[in-house]
């Protein structure tokens, strides 16, 4: 039920600034004007025209960066963070409440959790044995057990989870955050998606910039040697490559002289400088040679099961260190499907958990030991949860009516449990948290009021949270 059909009306930089004078735009404008590049000092072309320049938030931020661990497919809440004894009692019996329509309409009996839950840490948060390493960080986690989504299908739910809207075409949260705050990093994009091999349904549009300028779109970094498309210089001979760039600079300068000063033209030229910096920065970023052996071990790098995701978690830390604003991590292929266990829940969830448990725990511990966790908001979750009754014999179908996620670091109160589902873990009954609330909370921790982070187009001030969203104060410090 959202108003969502406003077409992109791209703007010139001037128009953008002049239109942004309402709400958050004013802060952006003030920040830009306060930037020496905009003011008295002679502007260097790069800064003057760089929309990724850091901006001042609405109020002091708790978190500077976000690492979003997207658990594609939808992990099961009652098998991870939301223990439900009733499932044990009624295992194998028909569920005693009304069954909502499901994706497969293959509704089986109530199915108990195959793993044991234990109280973890000082806070005693129950976490199932799927996550032995993460359990050591229990006191850093704020577990939300009352998430809901509006969609039962992956693609819609993925778009919704990322952009607050169930169809293709809206800016992803990473794009919004980067639009709001710019980036502290001068040599990498502000919003990076680290792929471990699996792109969620809905494709790259989950990370798009929608109607925001393309500057804010997520940049996909693949695992492996060439993480970014077209990054490697075309010429192996660096002198010849340099000659080409030198000639290009000369000819471009002449173009400006002949055609006259023009923002678009000049920013297109400046753009090459960032691209050039990226070419050297990215290989340095991806090179883990100077990380200690202990660090690599912490992330499970070197062990077959955890190597892929461990590397990505470590690279995420290195990106945040360099000032990248928003890093999203995607799941890897573990032989089974990602967390989408329509059948064989036990084997599938085990493999998925195995791949991420130690790397994520490693990330949290590493961030903490470096004093970075306080400034980094870590978010873990999937697009929906799973049904308490089996799909077929041993799977679970999609359940958007109640599921769990957790947040850590960046102003979040660790050791918290928030919200509640019913005895089956099926529907939320207390402190329902919508995706919009999650977005509002994330923006809040980054120092932004979700109602003031707006972008005018198609005649409306658009927001990540649409016309919804409330900050979840119950999980904040």
């Amino acid at each position, binding site marked *: 039920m959202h*108003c969502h059909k406003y*077409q992109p009306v*791209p703007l010139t930089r001037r128009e953008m600034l002049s239109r942004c004078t309402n709400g958050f735009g004013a802060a952006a404008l003030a920040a830009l004007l306060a930037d020496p590049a905009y003011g008295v000092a002679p502007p260097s072309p790069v800064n003057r025209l760089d929309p990724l320049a850091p901006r001042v938030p609405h109020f002091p931020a708790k978190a500077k960066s976000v690492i979003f661990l997207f658990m594609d497919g939808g992990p099961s809440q009652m098998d991870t963070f939301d223990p439900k004894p009733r499932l044990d009692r009624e295992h194998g019996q028909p569920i005693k409440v009304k069954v909502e329509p499901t994706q497969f309409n293959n509704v089986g009996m109530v199915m108990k959790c195959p793993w044991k839950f234990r109280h973890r840490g000082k806070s005693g948060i129950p976490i199932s044995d799927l996550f032995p390493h993460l359990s050591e960080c229990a006191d850093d986690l704020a577990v939300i057990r009352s998430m809901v989504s509006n969609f039962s299908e*992956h693609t819609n739910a993925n778009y919704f989870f990322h952009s607050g809207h169930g169809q293709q075409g809206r800016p992803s949260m990473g794009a919004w955050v980067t639009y709001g705050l710019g980036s502290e990093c001068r040599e990498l994009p502000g919003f990076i998606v680290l792929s471990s091999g699996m*792109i969620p349904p809905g494709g790259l549009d989950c990370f798009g910039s929608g109607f925001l300028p393309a500057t804010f779109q997520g940049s996909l970094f693949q695992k492996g040697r060439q993480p970014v498309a077209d990054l490697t210089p075309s010429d192996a001979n660096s002198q*010849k490559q340099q*000659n080409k760039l030198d000639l290009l600079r000369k000819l471009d300068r002449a173009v400006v002289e002949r055609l006259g000063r023009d923002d678009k033209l000049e920013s297109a030229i400046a753009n090459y400088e*960032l691209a050039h910096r990226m070419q050297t920065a990215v290989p340095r970023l991806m090179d883990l040679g100077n990380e200690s052996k202990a660090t690599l071990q912490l992330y499970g790098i070197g062990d077959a099961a955890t190597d892929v995701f461990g590397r990505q978690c470590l690279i995420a830390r290195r990106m945040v260190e360099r000032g990248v604003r928003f890093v999203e991590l995607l799941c890897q292929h573990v032989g089974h499907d990602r967390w989408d266990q329509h059948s064989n829940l036990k084997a599938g969830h085990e493999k998925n958990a195995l791949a991420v448990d130690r790397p994520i725990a490693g990330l949290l511990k590493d961030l903490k030991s470096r004093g970075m966790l306080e400034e980094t908001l870590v978010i873990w979750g999937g697009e929906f949860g799973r049904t308490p009754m089996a799909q077929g014999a041993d799977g679970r179908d999609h359940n958007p009516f109640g599921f769990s996620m957790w947040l850590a670091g960046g102003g979040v109160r660790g050791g918290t449990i928030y919200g509640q589902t019913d005895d089956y873990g099926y529907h939320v009954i207390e402190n329902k948290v919508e995706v919009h609330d999650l977005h509002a909370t994330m923006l809040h921790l980054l120092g932004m009021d979700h109602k003031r982070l707006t972008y005018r187009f198609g*005649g*409306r001030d658009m927001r990540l949270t649409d016309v919804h969203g409330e900050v979840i104060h119950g999980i904040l410090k």
Partner: protein
Amino acid sequence: MARFHRKLSFVGVLMKRWSTLLLILTCNLSPIRAEEPSRAAVEFFENKIRPLLVEQCFSCHSGKKQRGGLNLESRANLLKGGDTGPALVPGEAAKSLLIRAVSYKEELRMPPRSKLSDQQIADLTAWVEQGAPWPGSGATSAPGEKIDLQKLLSHWSFQPMRLPSLPAVARSAWPRNAIDHFVLAKLEQHGLTPAPEADRRTLLRRLTFDLTGLPPTPEEIRSFLDDRSPLAYIRVVDRLLASPAYGERWGRHWLDLMRFAETSGHEFDFEISQAYLYRDYVIRAVNDDLPYDDFVREHLAGDLLPTPRRHPAEQTNESILGTGFWFLGESKHSPVDLRVDGADRRDNMIDVFGKAFLGLTLSCARCHDHKFDPITTREYYSLVSYLQSSRQQRAFLDPPERIGKPAAEIAALREQAARLAIDQTSRLLEARWKALPERPTSTTGRHETLIDYIVFDDFSQGDYRNWYVTGEAFGTAPASVYDVELDPTHTPPVRRIFRGAHSGRVSQRLMGALRSKTFTISKKFIHYRVRGTAVKVNLILDGFQLIQDPIYGGLRFAVHSTEPRWHVQDVSMWQGLQGYIELLDDGDGFLELEQVVFSDRPEPPIEASVSATREQQLEAIRHWREGKPVDRRILDALLSDARLREKAAPTNAQKLQELLARAAELEAKLPTPRRGLAMADGTAVEERVHIRGNPKTLGETAPRVLPAVLVGQRQPVSRQGSGRLEMAQRLTEPDNPLLARVIVNRLWHHHFGAGLVRSCDDFGHQGDRPTHPELLDWLALELQRSGWSLKHLHRLMVLSRTYQMSSRGEDNNNKIDPLNLYLHRMPIRRLEAEAIRDALLAVSGRLDRRMFGKGPLPHLTEFMVGRGRPAKSGPLDGDGRRSVYLNLRRNFLPPMFLAFDYPTPFTCIGRRGVSNVPAQALTLMNNPLVLQQARLWAERTAGLGDRERIQAMYEVAYGREASTEELAQALEFLGQQGGTAQSWTDLAHVLFNVKEFIFVN
């Protein structure tokens, strides 16, 4: 007297009874009267209920904040309720929405965050059961805001267009045509002076890119420079407007509005069948300068035009292809909630319709009356009603003579054969019947229709009254007793009498579709009596067009059975939805559908025997032969009676064989029908308003009409079917204030870098005001006057002096008008993604100018991953085809396009972004396609002397000569790189990267 007395006393009793009755009524009514409640009730309310309301509900339902139109601050307001009706039925908790909502069992669940405690729910329930006593009742709050439509109607774009007189200008020698008068007047008004004229090379490059999306060739440059006649420029304009590349360029602009893509996106990115036919249709229409009003009518109702346009060479139905645009959006293969999915899909269709044709954000009225423009929610659902009365089809495009005519010839031969065979068969049967010692007495075959079974159709009426037929396969009526299966080698030659709707009577090679009227799923099961091979039966619910059977299944089945059998479809989970049955014969099979029956019972209706006397049987045989009405079931029984067939005398098969051979000959030559994505008419359906956009809370019905802001009181009248044709005709009448204004503004936008109304897709209150309102009206009226010729408008625009100005502004002008709102100069523009790629190919010599058809698959890189990835990659250079012909897959758009602001095809995009991302630089510096084309280009210029070669490269890339300095720089560079063949590739690569290559001034 006594009698009279008795009578009186009777009246007395009656009165007494009445008063009792009245008393009862009063008692029942009393809670509604809201008399001051008892002390206990007040206490209960103040202690339990009021605090509960304040704490749990008031944050959304009090004061100015009235979510769902509901205010809970007084009893009267509860009784009045919100958008979904009264919140309270005093004394009846089960009927009170308030209690149902807090019970968390239905669609509406309140409070939305957390369920109330059991005690709180019990308290509220008790309170309502008591009659909802509320001390000091009676206060009501102010009614919710109502939008003042009359006020909104005064917005500029809804006013009739007025032909302005040409404004006077001081520099009277400057204007070349009317456009210049309007532009110059504004410039003078703001103290601006027009920029000088651009040089001829710049002008030619600008014009060529504008009209064709390609750079001018050196020959074209030469010929223009050599043509010193004053008509030289006009000649170029006419040449470019006549070139096929013009339609490719401007067709592509149109595709942006139609969110064109060739796959459905969503999870698996399924193909939209032959979507490229729509792209080709657009390119042809633009090249043919199809009058814009016709173009619009074809989009809205091309399937309903009495005389559709035909493809000039193929003679296929051209007009109907326009309607394909409706279905080019994102769609799902397995929506869990069909109603919600349908509402979302239709919303996208209306969004595209509103923005593209009318510059209106109609979709804003989906959940509430439009907040800024005079569009009500009911008007929005009126448009939905047009869509609900329409369907999707793969239309048959062939002219009648291509398939219809040979099919008719085959049918005639078959009929002749049938007559002969029936004659022979009936005589045989009759003879056998007489010869048999024991006469057959009973026949079977009727399906008993029990009270539990509702026959939707058994085709006993002899027509397709409940169905819509397309294609040739199903004929124009159901099978009769004269539609028979023949076998000349068999005795008797009639093997079987066809039944019901049959798609293989004339030839199994014919294709066709049969779609039922729309009905409501009222029973749990649908039973189909079917027979056939290689055919599909779909149940289309709420317009959910099947890509495949959804994951949960049950909406599609294939038929593979030579004998009739029942197929049972469990539709219990869709009861209440509207839908229709779709029979598809898309190949060499056939389908015979005898009956469709609805029932709550899962078992099909029972077949019962039907008896016929000997006389009736004999009569049936004779009548069959004589062409008189006859009960098919009796003949069926006789034909299937083995005793009647045995020892039958052999038939003379020769004539029959001859006829069938002639039919088979024609059959073998039947061409495959040509099909295309299109809309089709269905049963007229009136959608109901979705209160607050929720398809589960329905309000009043919305008749099929257009928003009043467009047509005033004179509404189109829908006589039958969807009414889209009448709607399209009304919408394209000249009094529509938006249609012409919006399209001329789009042309202006692409020629001058920004529209006169900058928000091209929003002419409403939230959109931008026109910078030159009189000019906009002048152009719009000129378009209508010219018979809606877009080429005429292009010509006017590019022949204007305004268009021919230089892009270099004077300092003073730049100060007064930094955004160049008033066009004191031409803007500098970056080329679109497609033009950049096309220019690479054109310059390198790789460009392949073939037009139309299925485009090459996208070239897949390791960064194009995810579900639905095509099995194989297309060629790196897309076979050299122009970008408009590349296969566009929603989830696998070319990265190069995305880097250069290619729009996500999710809705109408009239104005693309022009952003700056490092990916643009990285693409041009390192992308293999760019490197490949640089090498090709270098090779192409080999053989010239160094200086000529550099000059040739400059001319083809930038449309100009290299300066002495540039020549020297290039030569120096070549030396640095070693003067090899690779050095020339390096130079070509640098020239691709110089901004001049991707900018037009």
